[in-house]
């Protein structure tokens, strides 16, 4: 789900930073970005209710920090960064809450996937998600953005602050690990 915003970003940023037009401009921001941000978060935390809470936090934080957004990066990049930080923070807190080691992978997020009424994947989907959840954090992020969303490496590089070369290597390793876990089993 590569995303190209159908909006004039510069004009929108200007409106967002003017208290008189910010509210209306934020509606446009929500309409444009709530879906891609939600799906990004959902792929990280799996459960719909958790993703729902986190997306609301992401946009609340964006609203509270509009004065910090200077327009150097794209709005989508800025929002994805906040979303990834929120999701990682949530996952770390869940690990603490469930007494799971910090070093453990994130397959615990899939433990109750059958109970999530908004998951209608089959066994193949579950196997794929389990293999992805076992990846190291960075490889998981790159895999989600590239494999599921077909995002360009340049865009992922802006969001994760990692060079395109390093991302290509991460994706290569991630695909290899997922393939080995799935195709050779």
């Amino acid at each position, binding site marked *: 789900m590569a995303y190209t915003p159908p909006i004039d970003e510069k004009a929108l940023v200007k409106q967002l930073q003017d208290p008189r037009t910010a509210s209306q401009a934020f509606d446009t921001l929500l309409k444009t970005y709530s879906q891609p941000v939600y799906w990004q978060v959902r*792929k990280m935390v799996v459960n719909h209710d958790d993703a729902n809470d986190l*997306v*609301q936090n992401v946009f*609340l934080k964006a*609203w*509270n920090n509009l*004065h910090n957004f200077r327009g150097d990066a794209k709005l989508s990049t800025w929002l994805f960064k906040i979303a990834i930080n929120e999701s990682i923070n949530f996952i770390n807190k869940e690990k603490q809450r469930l007494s799971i080691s910090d070093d453990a992978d994130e397959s615990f997020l899939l433990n109750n996937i059958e109970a999530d009424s908004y998951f209608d994947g089959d066994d*193949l989907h579950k196997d794929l998600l389990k293999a992805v959840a076992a990846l190291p954090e960075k490889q998981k992020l790159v895999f989600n953005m590239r494999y599921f969303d*077909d995002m360009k490496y340049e865009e992922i590089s802006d969001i994760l602050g990692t060079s395109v070369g390093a991302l290509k290597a991460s994706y290569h390793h991630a*695909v290899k690990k997922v393939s080995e876990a799935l195709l050779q089993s």
Partner: protein
Amino acid sequence: MRQEDQLKEKYGTDPGFRVPDGYFDDLNARIAASLPAYPEAPKATDMSVWQRIKPYVYMAAMFAGIWLMMQVFHNVTSSESLSLDNPPAAIAQALEFDQEEIYPYFTIANDYELEEEVSANYDSIEEFEQDFGYNLKPEFATIEVDDVSHNPASV
């Protein structure tokens, strides 16, 4: 066939997640309705402890990186070839450290976790300054070091 193509052929690219009908319209309305008044840019004196120290933390990380790089270049000898397949191992080799010793230094110090840690332990900049023996000038706190800085206390 490439591994990626094999995966896509067998598993597809839909992770199987769904949302309730009309979810995004409802989500946008709920978020818009929950927004507080338009936030004013905080003055240096209103900033959280983390916001005040962040420029210093980032600068310290930069100098630590430069120091490590200089150590690596200083210790690399022309007779040893370094493999970059495993950067921590290569750096450990260059520094003549045990790999086990150097891996902890490659733990990603997520600034978000650092922020949580600082926010949880310090209520005021004075406490932080006293613990570390620093005097952090308020004017430097207004330097913007990235685009996602925020005050968790305000959320």
